[in-house]
Each structure stands twice: as C-alpha cells, then as structure tokens.
C-alpha cells in the first residue's frame, strides 16, 4: 500500500524541524518517493494576499522593501539546501514558499499536492521554549485530512 508515497515536510528551520527531517529521510524505506517541502511566511512589512506563491509570483518582489527581499532570498536558499539533502537520498522533491496564515497554508498545500502524510515538529521557533505543542502543529493536527507525524525530541 502506498501509504507514505508522497509526504509533506513542513519546516520553520528550527532544530526540531531538523530532527523531523531525519524521519522524512527514514520513511523512504517504507515506500516514500516524493517530498513536498513547505515554509510559510506571515511576517513581511507589506500585506500580501493569503496564499501568495513566493517562488512563482516574481512580480510581488517589486513591491517589497529590500529587507523583505533579502529575508526571502535567504529562505529560498534554505529551502534549496533541504531539497538537495533529500535529493541526495534519492527522493523526488518539490519546494514551496508561501505567504499567509501558516497552518492554513500548510494544509492547503497538503490538499493540492494530495500528500499522504505531513511531517512536522511539535514546536519550533516560538519564544516559549517550554511549549509542548506549538500553535502551528495544533492547527495542522486539527485541520489536516491526511495523517500527521509530530516529531518530538531527537532520538538519542
């Protein structure tokens, strides 16, 4: 059964999201073939329409101040770095950089891409380090139609 064939890896580039990447890699042994890597930004100085595709819609960069442009370029580099890591594992990879409500965008990419599983951390870059389950994870668990793998700490 192709249960893990196509997965979505949602990352805020936090240490725990990096741990989640180990699980994404490991799932290849259970039939994973393709990974959709997603990062969502909600903190630009200009308000954009929810769901703006920041990889495809190049025109929006014209209305963004330079700080935002640099910030986004840096994120694209990080996404490409993840893509390379997964491609080295022999996986097919697609990256997304979206603007909007974070959990909503993650779930909407999951739906569009018809992924079989979402892999993400239990918390991330939030300010409260003692948080047990972040707001993004909580909302994705509630809203996603597909299974979700919530990664906690690194395995010793």
């Amino acid at each position, binding site marked *: *059964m192709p249960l893990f064939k196509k997965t979505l890896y949602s990352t805020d580039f936090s240490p725990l999201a990096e741990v989640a990447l*180990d699980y994404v890699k*490991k799932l290849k042994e*259970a039939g994973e073939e393709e990974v959709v890597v997603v990062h969502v930004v909600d903190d630009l100085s200009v308000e954009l329409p929810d769901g703006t595709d920041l990889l495809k819609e190049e025109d929006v960069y014209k209305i963004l101040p330079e700080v935002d442009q640099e910030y986004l370029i840096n994120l694209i580099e990080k996404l490409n770095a993840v893509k390379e890591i997964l491609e080295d594992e022999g996986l097919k990879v697609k990256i997304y950089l979206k603007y909007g409500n974070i959990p909503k965008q993650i779930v909407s990419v999951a739906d569009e891409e018809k992924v079989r599983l979402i892999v993400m951390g*239990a918390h991330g870059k939030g300010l409260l380090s003692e948080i047990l389950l972040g707001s993004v994870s909580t909302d994705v668990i509630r809203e996603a139609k597909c299974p979700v793998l*919530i990664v*906690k*700490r690194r395995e010793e």
Partner: protein
Amino acid sequence: MLFEKVLYPFDMRKASLKVKPYVMKLKEAGCREVHVIYVMVPSEWGLLSREEFDCEEKIEALKGTMDEGFVSGLLKIFRKMKEVATEFEENGVKTRVVLVPGELDETLAWYADKYGIKLIALGVTSESLSFFRVGKILDIIKAVSQPVLIVKTPEEEDGEV
C-alpha cells in the same frame, strides 16, 4: 532506529484500527516490535492501581475486586487486541498486548518511557480533535516524549469494532 518499537493504543473503536496499516508498513523502515495497549480509564473502570495486565489469568484475578460483567468486558477487549497482534506476528513483528489502568495521557507517557518506545501511533476521530472535545488527543501528544503519528477517521465512519 527511529521506528523500532511502536506503541499502538487500541480502544475497540474503528478509528483506532485505521492506524494499523501504517504501523504494519513501518516494518519496512525498521519496526520490530509493537505494543498494543488499552488504557483502563478511571471514569469507565473505577480507580485501580497501576498494573500491567498482559495475560488472561491476571485479568481473571480481578474477579475478586471487580464486577463480573466488567471482567468479561476486559477479557473481550484483551482477546480482540490479541487478534490485532496476531496480524503483526504473522508479518514477523514481535508484539505485546497489555491493559493498564490509569488516565490516558499519563499512562501512555509512563509506558512509552518504561519500554523505550520510539513512536506512538494514534487512530482518532476528527471529532475528538474538535474544540468541543479539546484536550484528550492533544494532551497525549503533549504528555509523551516520543513522536506521534496521528491518523484520523471521519466521525461517521467510526463505531465499535
């Protein structure tokens, strides 16, 4: 070994069966052992001290303290879980079937740590995650230190197994 030992909480509902094929599939990614667990919550079974009921004899022994109907209810659950476990065994995965009294989140967290569990696989209904029933599932995810795989079933497809 990220998926070596899996804890599979089972509660006699179809929703909890939905996660089974996923756990089965994880064998290919290194799953060697599955612990099928039923947590006897106090609201349903009364207050009992923590103990691992992993064979019929131990459950039968409850007849002294517990209503007979309850005991046969537990035996029925245990046998159903054994059935589920057999499928894993036939697939070359070691299993343990166990009933443990306690609150859901605390008991799963305690058990998972005690047995070096690497992943907890939860089959839940979408409704159990709704705002009206906040808590239960999210509390488990918060309480445990292992990764959690959540597989949802729409409410209307749920029911007793």
